[in-house]
């Protein structure tokens, strides 16, 4: 390898290692499942932190039906059971150079081996993304996926 190419490569490797060290060894994944309906005006007080985001869905009622937090190592898969026999697999893959948490997320439903959703995304540290739209008990599920790591 030429010296001119070696230097940037080494620099990038060191930078990546530094970011991994800064980010810590563990990631906390936060999965909150909300049942949204139009049947009442109820708003679960445990969801007040994300009320502005939930209001964008334009349902009249929001109830937290499941909440789970789990600390996992980078690259390790975390499985979450969701209402209605659904299944969520989350793998935190890396802490990116722009201080984001990269995730691989798969939502599975039913007995089909093919995931319903298979996505790669990155969220800001302490950030979130919503996966919504599946029907459940006369309402619609809104799954909030959040991730936190030590900076």
């Amino acid at each position, binding site marked *: 390898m030429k010296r*001119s190419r070696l230097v940037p490569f080494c620099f990038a490797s060191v930078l990546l290692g530094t970011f991994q060290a800064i980010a810590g060894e563990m990631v906390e994944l936060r999965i909150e499942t909300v049942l949204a309906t139009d049947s009442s005006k109820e708003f679960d007080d445990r969801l007040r932190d994300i009320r502005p985001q939930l209001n964008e869905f334009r349902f009249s009622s929001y109830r937290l039906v499941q909440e789970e937090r789990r600390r996992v190592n980078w690259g390790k898969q975390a499985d979450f059971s969701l209402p209605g026999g659904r299944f969520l697999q989350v793998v935190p893959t890396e802490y990116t150079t722009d201080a984001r948490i990269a995730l691989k997320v798969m939502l599975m439903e039913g007995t089909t081996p093919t995931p*319903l959703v298979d996505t790669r995304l990155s*969220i800001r540290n302490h950030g979130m993304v919503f996966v919504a739209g599946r029907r459940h008990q006369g309402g619609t599920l809104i799954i909030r996926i959040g991730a936190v790591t030590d900076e």
Partner: protein
Amino acid sequence: MNTCPRSERVVALFHDDELDSPLRREVASHVAGCVVCTRTLAAFERVQELVAQAVSEQLEESDFSNFWEGVASRIDQQAPPSWRLWLQLWRERLRPAWMPGTPVWVATTAALLVTTVLVFHPPAKDSPLPLPDPAPTVLAANDQAQIESLSSTATVFLWNEQEGNATVIWVGDDYEGDRP
């Protein structure tokens, strides 16, 4: 005069075999016990017989002995083939059996072009460093989340709410208009 509401609409469809099986069975059962519909059906059958008889009589009276000669004559009177058709026929006659087809000619021409370009414009020995890989395609992005790839077996909508600063992956096959 006796009438039956079914004789007006359904019996004609029944006669033409235009009814699906359950209704057809029901109408057949009704016609068997309804004098008015039986008469209506008989009238339809009689009309059909008369029409078929008239058509066959006309056919017997027609002379088809010169029919195909007439068709051939009309074809000959059509305009002569265009110059493209003549050219194609001429090429087909002259083309030897070993002559390669169009794809071979195209491939050969392309190879000659590439060779010419390489000979007259060789790549510089001190070529610059290769370009870095392009940034991954981002399907949706905001301050909170960036979706880099997404596959789904369902109908998926992606949207960013600027107001709530939220990225949403909406997975559903029952789009209701107002959501998302």
